[in-house]
């Protein structure tokens, strides 16, 4: 278990066990634990208003969704333009409980962890069904097949009375060990709940990627025929990747439903699917920490653009649609610039910074 100080200069592993360790050294582990501690403690030390807490919660929900998308796209190489629809499946699982049992039924308010897991599994089932065409389709054909799923999902939600035709379906306030979570504690409570889920899922993905399932995912991405020749099952792997992504999206959708205390169809449109794709790409495809940078960066950008548009509105009257114009403009620019100049995403900056501090004062 001793820290291998040579790792900075190359691969000096002598066994598979060593290579599979989550933390290369005990320093890495302490830094990680310290980082987690900071994440859990800061809302107590520096309380912020619930408006900003909502933004933080939003980022965390997006992180859950983007981890799933990154598994699918970054590690599996399968394009999905319907990720928001999978999220919608999760959210509408919660919503259908509210519709049938009433929005403050015990199952909705007390058993919410179970309901979130159930939403994840519903998402996984739908993911596997949508993933079935992936056994035969590739690249653009697959992208359009998932796009079809997104459009059909939107139509079904808008059409069915059971889902209130896309209007908001309310979700009741949840109970925790301390009792009902009131208005003032709502966002802080969900910060901790979602953060715990993010940590658990992050560790889960980290471990999946080390098993044969994770490795076969990467192998199928790189060349599915070669993987087939090596004895893997590309079709099954692809369906399984879709199911996994569906699970993450379903969990994220259920969290979204509880966080906003309501489910409406407008949070799960094609626009959001594209936004999750952008988050995954800006963060860095095929890296786990990229799934954390991407949502944070894009949501932060969103807020800044909103501020900017508001400020310009103060100086220039009559330019009221600047905010609607600036958002897509900046969003598109960020995607295009990242893809043209830093296709490996923010995760690459992180990697550069890490290797720089590791080797300092020596240059590589």
């Amino acid at each position: 278990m001793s820290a291998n100080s040579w790792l900075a200069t190359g691969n000096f592993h002598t066994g598979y066990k060593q290579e599979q360790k989550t933390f290369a050294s005990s320093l890495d582990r302490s830094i990680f634990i310290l980082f987690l501690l900071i994440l859990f403690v800061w809302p107590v030390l520096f309380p912020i208003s619930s408006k900003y807490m909502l933004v933080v919660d939003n980022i965390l929900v997006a992180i859950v969704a983007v981890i799933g998308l990154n598994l699918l796209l970054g590690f599996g190489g399968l394009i999905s333009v319907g990720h928001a629809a999978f999220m919608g499946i999760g959210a509408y699982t919660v919503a259908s409980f509210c519709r049938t049992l009433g929005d403050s039924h015990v199952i909705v308010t007390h058993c919410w962890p179970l309901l979130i897991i159930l939403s994840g599994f519903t998402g996984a089932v739908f993911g596997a069904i949508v993933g079935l065409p992936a056994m035969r389709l590739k690249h653009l054909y697959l992208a359009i097949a998932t796009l079809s799923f997104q459009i059909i999902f939107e139509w079904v939600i808008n059409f069915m009375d059971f889902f209130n035709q896309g209007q908001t379906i309310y979700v009741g306030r949840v109970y925790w060990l301390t009792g009902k979570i009131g208005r003032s504690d709502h966002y802080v409570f969900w910060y901790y709940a979602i953060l715990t889920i993010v940590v658990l899922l992050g560790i889960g993905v980290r471990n999946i990627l080390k098993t044969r399932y994770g490795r076969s995912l990467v192998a199928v991405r790189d060349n599915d025929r070669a993987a087939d020749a090596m004895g893997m099952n590309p079709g099954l792997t692809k369906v399984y990747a879709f199911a996994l992504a569906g699970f993450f999206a379903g969990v994220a959708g259920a969290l979204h439903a509880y966080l906003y205390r309501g489910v409406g169809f407008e949070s799960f449109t094609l626009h959001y699917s594209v936004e999750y794709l952008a988050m995954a790409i800006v963060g860095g495809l095929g890296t786990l920490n990229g799934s954390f940078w991407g949502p944070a960066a894009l949501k932060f950008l969103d807020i800044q653009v909103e501020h900017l548009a508001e400020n310009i509105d103060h100086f220039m009257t009559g330019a009221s649609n600047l905010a609607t114009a600036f958002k897509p403009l900046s969003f598109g620019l960020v995607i295009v610039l990242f893809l043209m100049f830093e296709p490996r995403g923010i995760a690459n900056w992180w990697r550069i910074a890490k290797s720089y501090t590791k080797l300092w004062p020596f240059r590589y």
Partner: protein
Amino acid sequence: MSYFFQLVVSGTVVGSIYALAALGLVLIYKSSRVASFAHGQLIAAGAFLTFFMTITVGMPIYIALAASMIISFFLAMSIERIFLRRLIGEPIITVIMVTIGLASILDGLIYMTPFGTENFSFPSFLPLDPISLGGGVSISWIQLVGFLFTMGLIAGFSWFFKKSTVGISMRAVSDDQFASMSVGISVPRVFGLAWATAGLTAAAAGCIIGNIMGLNFDSLKAFGITVFPVIILGGLDSILGAVVAGIITGLIQQFATGYLDGNFGLNGTQDVMPYVILLVILLFKPHGLFGTHEIERV
């Protein structure tokens, strides 16, 4: 029965516009293996340019249409030159995302103009009373002119690809890039031309749609998404496929509106039926109706 034929007529008209819009995407895909998600924005830009030049500048509509087609030609060409030229050889998700980003940028630019949020309609320049085709079936003048114009353009492009030197070099590039380079075809120039032609057809399609259905940014933009089932159905790299699939999609939409809406408590089925049919067809023919099967080697 006349109801059925009426639906066939309007479906064919709408379908021919889909075919025209799909033609551009198929061209881009054929030459450079890129699928553009920004096509709807190009369609909208073409329509708004035509409107701007007829109303604000005061040109006759035919000249305005020609001018907007030329402007879109260069707009699309510069998009290729600035953004996509340097992404040649990148993975497909990168290229798709760049076109999505471009769509977003164009969205932002259009939202800055009044066209982004308000509705406009072209002044009518043709007789308003519909032409009767007998048996209670009728077609409006604007639909007829739009249909004929579209068919003329498609026929012209088919000739262009079969016979002209540039068209032949475009087909050569889509067949084998290295071989066409070795006989002296400039591959980047062909990519640029493919985009430019796509811009030109998008402008024409946008103008016809705007004339038939009115100018609304969201509905024009939606054409750029609906055109995807069309090209996938036709098989991505077949011009004949684009035309056939375009008309099939138009007919499906009209039949869905005519027979499904309001019958089983359904509505808005025309937006979703092309995708349902697409999924069913992809299950049996993963390369669309006329697409070529790619042979992959490890």
